[in-house]
């Protein structure tokens, strides 16, 4: 039998597999396959792109023999398959569609390769073809050791923000993944927003993508990891995203106000959903300028890490719900002196502008506006996550909504802008609002 690791390596490799079929009358047919995908140790999927002789044959005689070559050792394998069904939507199809677009772009076949379906096969048996082989190269990183080391730090994080830092630092230190980010899902708006990143000139915290856009959006929508070894403009972010926003009008222009931080010319990308109780709470995304950078083992490791991060987020949420009542408001702090800064809030999208500068919108914008109102009218500076969750003014779209992630986003945006308003943690689930300049709050279209 072909070891699972070898099968996955072969299907990942750039050496195309060969598919042998035969018609009911015994006439053979041999064709090259564009793409195969490992599903489990008993199933794999092959791309269905054209209605050709291979397809006619397998519909009449489901027995297929697949020839594979290991990309490092040159070991040949034959995998005997039985065709089961074709999927034209769902996670397997979407993942293969994204990969195929990359393969097509890499091989000059854009516009020719189009996925019509994912043909699902049962692996009946496999054989090792006798012949010469090369020694396997040990991987540069031992993914299991890297996973263990990286995972060990995560549960020590006291809050969401330090958890995300530990995760991205761990990817850099132990997996040598230099470019990575975490986006959280805003389920009410079908958007993902960046809360943390590493390896980019600008953090991009607060930048948004639509669910279904590019590998990150597809991974979130399909709840399935997407790994592309050759990048393609079809799944690239940037120009298309900006143009789309411009077509949709000014309101959506704020989506591109904070540019997405991704690499201009990525070679490989890997997007892994961070699981929640029902829908994913976000996506862990890694990329590299190098093609074929991420292996199946990297994907395994990132799925394990994302699962742990998802669990810890739920733990933070539970702690919040079981936590003690918020501490007393504390004494009033002296009001700052100086020229007041005009702070505008647009209720239509909860965007907040400090002076003329756009800061944030959505739930995070609404949180900030609520805090500033209480600061202005009541002189409050001490707040707790728990009271914010219960505050009707914050209008969290859903009980399961991730307040912690919104606060991470808000904290980072304020810090990056070096704003005259800052959030400072004072304990678990508690923080202080620091205002260093008098503010003039203006609700722009509250009656609209």
């Amino acid at each position: 039998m072909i070891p699972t690791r070898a099968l996955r390596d072969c299907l990942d490799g750039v050496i195309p597999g060969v598919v042998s079929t035969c018609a009911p009358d015994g006439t053979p047919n041999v064709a090259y396959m564009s793409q195969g995908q490992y599903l489990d140790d008993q199933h794999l999927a092959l791309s269905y792109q054209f209605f050709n002789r291979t397809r006619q044959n397998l519909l009449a005689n489901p027995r297929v023999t697949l020839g594979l070559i290991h990309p490092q050792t040159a070991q040949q394998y034959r995998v005997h398959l039985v065709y089961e069904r074709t999927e034209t939507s769902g996670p397997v199809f979407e993942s293969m569609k994204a990969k195929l677009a990359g393969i097509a772009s890499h091989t000059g076949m854009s516009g020719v390769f189009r996925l019509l379906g994912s043909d699902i096969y049962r692996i009946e048996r496999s054989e090792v073809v006798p012949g010469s082989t090369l020694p396997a190269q040990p991987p540069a990183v031992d993914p299991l050791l890297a996973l263990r080391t990286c995972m060990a730090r995560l549960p020590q994080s006291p809050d969401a923000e330090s958890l995300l830092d530990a995760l991205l630092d761990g990817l850099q230190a132990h997996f040598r993944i230099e470019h990575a980010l975490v986006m959280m899902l805003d389920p009410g708006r079908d958007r993902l927003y960046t809360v943390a990143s590493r390896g980019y000139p600008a953090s991009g915290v607060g930048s948004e993508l639509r669910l279904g856009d590019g590998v990150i959006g597809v991974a979130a929508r399909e709840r399935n990891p997407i790994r592309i070894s050759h990048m393609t403009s079809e799944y690239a972010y940037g120009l298309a995203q900006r143009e789309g926003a411009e077509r949709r009008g000014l309101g959506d222009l704020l989506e591109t106000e904070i540019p997405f931080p991704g690499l201009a010319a990525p070679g490989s990308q890997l997007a892994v959903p961070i699981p929640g109780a029902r829908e994913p709470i976000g996506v862990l995304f890694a990329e590299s300028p190098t093609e074929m950078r991420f292996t199946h083992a990297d994907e395994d490791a990132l799925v394990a890490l994302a699962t742990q991060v998802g669990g810890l987020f739920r733990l933070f949420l539970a702690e919040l719900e079981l936590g003690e009542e918020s501490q007393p408001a504390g004494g009033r702090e002296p009001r700052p002196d100086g020229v007041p800064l005009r702070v505008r809030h647009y209720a239509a999208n909860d965007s907040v502008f400090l002076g003329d500068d756009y800061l944030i919108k959505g739930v995070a914008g609404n949180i900030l506006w609520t805090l500033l109102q209480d600061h202005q009218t009541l002189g409050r500076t001490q707040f707790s996550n728990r009271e914010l969750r219960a505050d009707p003014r914050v209008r969290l779209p859903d009980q399961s909504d991730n307040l912690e992630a919104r606060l991470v986003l808000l904290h980072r945006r304020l810090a990056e802008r070096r704003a005259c308003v800052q959030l400072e943690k004072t304990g678990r689930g508690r923080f202080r609002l620091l205002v260093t300049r008098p503010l003039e709050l203006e609700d722009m279209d509250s009656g609209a």
Partner: protein
Amino acid sequence: MPSPTPGFRLDPDTARFLMSGVSINAGAGGADGTPSLCRAFGCRVDPGGGQVAVFFSSRQAADLLRDVAHSRALAVVFSEPPTHRTVQVKGRDARVVPLAEGDLARVRAYRDAFAQCLAFLGFTETMVRTLLDCPDADLVALAFTPTAAFNGTPGAQAGAPLSPMVAPPPGAP
């Protein structure tokens, strides 16, 4: 199977393509409907394009040889990795034949040409030579009369029969 053109012959351009440094794989149908498959180490097309011989490792091709002995039907696909140009040739009278004079040199030349072809795509020569490694004594040839050839290059035209070069009728000028 489409009915073969009587007197079908491979045209000189296709014959040259088949004998260049392209990837070659052959398949046959087993008695139980299970297809067999084997990579080849080059081929010889007779002048005139009426006969094709394909070279294999007998150890690697055990199933293919068994199925061909049973059915005589063979499909061979030839593909040039950098261009994706692909041609599939089929025959119904495949049989094992002794290697002819010059066939060992053809296999060696094929290894050189395929290694050179793949070097442009970033594969090391060691990798390609390992893949195509086979002791001379282990080489076996399957010969057949091509009955049809198809364009297998990915795209809308894939599967279209190649225009055959039909042998001139006896006595024609």
